[in-house]
């Protein structure tokens, strides 16, 4: 049988999963944490603690600042030292809550034992409420509040839940280790999300460069299916290794053979996609009352001697994580938060980890050196590589000319910023940099236009 994958574009970077044999390890609690109030897509959370307050691990320290927002919990116990701006990993100011750690006292009601709880609550509304109170956001990278995703708008019906275990980014192995070591929890989490959505089918999609994970999860699913009817309909699917398979729209294409239209959402084609770590966070929030206060982070790179997969409390300074593993290696020229394809270069190691931090990667000068830029020769490799079917060479030209209307007509807003165009360009043109800037500009214009249209419609209604 042919290996399943998505239909357009994609590239094949070396997977470099050198930390695949490093077991998940719990990082000791740092002496101080900096928890940002904006670590999800949407409105920043509003702090509900004051300077000098004593907080416990798992206590709510910020409440949602709108519909599209999430609870934020203290990841440590201690005293709130300050609430104010601090530079994030790219050097821009963000509001953070600084907590000095004193001991590790948890909020009552959190089950910290390892026992697997397989009985699932039957009421979808109660599940979603628990997920919301647990501050769970999508841990695949976009940090979309999960409770919003699990409440599809009226009239839209979910037909399949896809649990994303592709981890197509090179180097990153935290999802893989989670599948291997916490596979039972992930499968129970999957069943909980399935129940919340009221769907019959769920697919755990894993790329075939992780055969151990596929075997393990298949066995876990079989065992749990034999135990309870709640697990019926959960399947494991092996996908061909190709970047960016873990992209939401690419994964839907690979698993369901359905394409999301430009500007559409996965729910339009009856799909909801969640990451394996999100499924784990859902399990912990619903079954164990444990909010999202830690996440797994891969620390890797050929030049980094102590590769590891760490479970890190949210808000841990990146420098603390790196120092725990022996500090920044001398040969490292670039530190990246996330993977090499979509990650962001870190210019400030004093910054703290976020809910969505998936990896810290060290690359040498040779690995990161950019090719000297030359002229576009219209070879079309970027258009071939683009998994969204865009024409990056054209978007680059339009962006340089500042033609925002033509950029919009050529769907720059559909760009998922996977970097396939830049990866494939033989002329070394920084396509991704330029297109992502233009995308931001065009999306800003579209948002302003939508807001103006809404205001005009409301004004007409008022008349």
């Amino acid at each position, binding site marked *: 049988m042919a290996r399943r994958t998505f239909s357009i574009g994609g590239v094949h970077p070396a997977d470099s999963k050198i930390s695949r044999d490093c077991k998940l390890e719990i990082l000791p609690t740092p002496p101080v944490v900096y928890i940002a109030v904006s670590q999800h897509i949407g409105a920043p959370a509003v702090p509900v603690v004051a300077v000098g307050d004593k907080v416990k691990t798992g206590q709510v320290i910020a409440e949602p600042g709108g519909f599209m927002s999430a609870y934020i919990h203290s990841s440590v116990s201690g005293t709130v030292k300050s609430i104010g701006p601090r*530079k994030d990993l*790219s*050097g*821009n*100011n963000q509001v953070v809550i600084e907590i000095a750690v004193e001991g590790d006292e948890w909020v009552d009601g959190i089950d910290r034992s390892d026992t697997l709880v397989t009985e699932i609550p039957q009421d979808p509304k109660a599940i979603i409420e628990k997920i919301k109170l647990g501050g769970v956001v999508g841990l695949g990278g976009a940090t979309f509040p999960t409770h919003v995703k699990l409440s599809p708008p009226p009239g839209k019906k979910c037909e399949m839940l896809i649990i994303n275990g592709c981890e197509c980014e090179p180097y990153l192995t935290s999802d893989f280790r989670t599948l291997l070591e916490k596979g039972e929890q992930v499968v129970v989490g999957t069943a909980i999300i399935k129940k919340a959505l009221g769907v019959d089918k769920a697919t755990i999609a894993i790329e075939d460069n992780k055969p151990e994970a596929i075997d393990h999860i298949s066995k876990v699913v079989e065992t749990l299916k034999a135990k309870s009817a709640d697990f019926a309909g959960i399947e494991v699917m092996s996908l061909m290794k190709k970047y960016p398979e873990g992209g939401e729209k690419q994964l839907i294409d690979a698993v369901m053979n359905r394409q999301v239209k430009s500007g559409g959402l996965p729910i339009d084609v009856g799909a909801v996609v969640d990451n394996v770590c999100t499924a784990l966070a859902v399990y912990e929030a619903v079954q164990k009352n444990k909010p999202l206060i830690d996440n797994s982070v891969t620390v890797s790179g050929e030049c980094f001697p102590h590769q590891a997969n760490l479970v890190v409390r949210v808000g841990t300074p990146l420098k603390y994580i790196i120092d725990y593993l022996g500090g920044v290696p001398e040969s490292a*020229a670039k530190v990246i938060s996330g993977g090499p394809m979509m990650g*962001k*270069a870190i*210019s400030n190691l004093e910054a703290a980890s976020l809910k969505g931090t998936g990896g810290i990667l060290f690359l040498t000068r040779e690995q*990161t*050196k*950019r090719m000297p830029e030359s002229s576009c020769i219209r070879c079309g490799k970027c258009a071939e590589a683009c998994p969204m079917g865009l024409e990056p060479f054209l978007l680059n030209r339009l962006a340089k000319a500042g033609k925002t209307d033509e950029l919009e007509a050529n769907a720059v807003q559909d760009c998922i910023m996977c970097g396939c165009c830049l990866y494939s360009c033989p002329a070394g043109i*920084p396509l991704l*940099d*330029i297109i*992502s*800037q233009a995308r*931001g500009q065009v999306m800003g214009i579209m948002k302003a236009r939508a807001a103006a249209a809404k205001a005009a419609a409301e004004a007409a209604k008022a008349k």
Partner: protein
Amino acid sequence: MTTTIIWTIAIISGLGLVLALTLYLVAQRFKVVEDPRIELVEKAMPGANCGGCGFAGCHAFAESAVKAPNLDNHFCPVGGNDTMKQVAAILGYEVKEKAPMVAVVRCNGTCENRPKVNEYDGSLSCRVKATLYSGDTGCSFGCLGCGDCVAACKFGALSMDPKTGLPVVDESKCTACGACAKACPKAIIELRKKGPRGMREYVSCVNKDKGPAAKKACAAACIGCGICVKTCTHGAIVLENNVAYIDPDKCKLCRECEAMCPTGAIHGVNFPKPLDKDAVKARIQERQKKAREAAAAASEAAKAAAGDPVVNKAEVKVIKKEESNG
């Protein structure tokens, strides 16, 4: 042979005549009637089509100006008052004179003042760089140094100084069209009044960080200490978000703030003499001393007029005690 040539010439000429006549008639029939003043106004304009006035070009400006009831919303920054006088004369409007403006780069982050903390190897565009991160220095507000403003200038008035890494404005060429200010993603460039004989005083920093953070990032940053605000006797300086701003309308160019600024973030340009900081500081101290003495004298006088305040307080206490006892 000859007949062929004659016929050819005749036919071609005849065809040409007929077509010319048709074109003439069609042109007459479908003539676009345009206000002749539009052309006159356009001729009076500088013709740079830079868009500094807010219109698509000089023709669009002329069309709009002819239709407008007055010239309040129309000003050509490139041509300045002279051009606007001509336009007003053509249209029969009155024109309000505007002070000539110039682009001012409000960043002091030279390579010496603001050391680099990381290396940027992405696209050489400030717009792109600003979307990626805060920049290759410790200051997240200052100049990114890729020269988007230089590329935006249609008059060749901006250039990057390779020594400082900052853009330099050639005042003789700058028309204050504002293209550079729009191109700068950090909003460092401001259009300010040129000032009498080009003399002007401004805060060359937009860093909103608190003092220590700003100072750590850049030796010449505005640290928001407020000394300039206290020094200014004209109320021209406001301190907002840890950064001072000098209002050019209120500034009297006394240069006292410049002398007092501890980091040298305030710049005075085109003054005939260099600033003698010590003399100005001595002058300010003398004035402040006098003011303190005057204030002390005034409070003494007020005390004397109101009687001994210590006794008054004691009396009040006694009365209160009696009230609570009763």
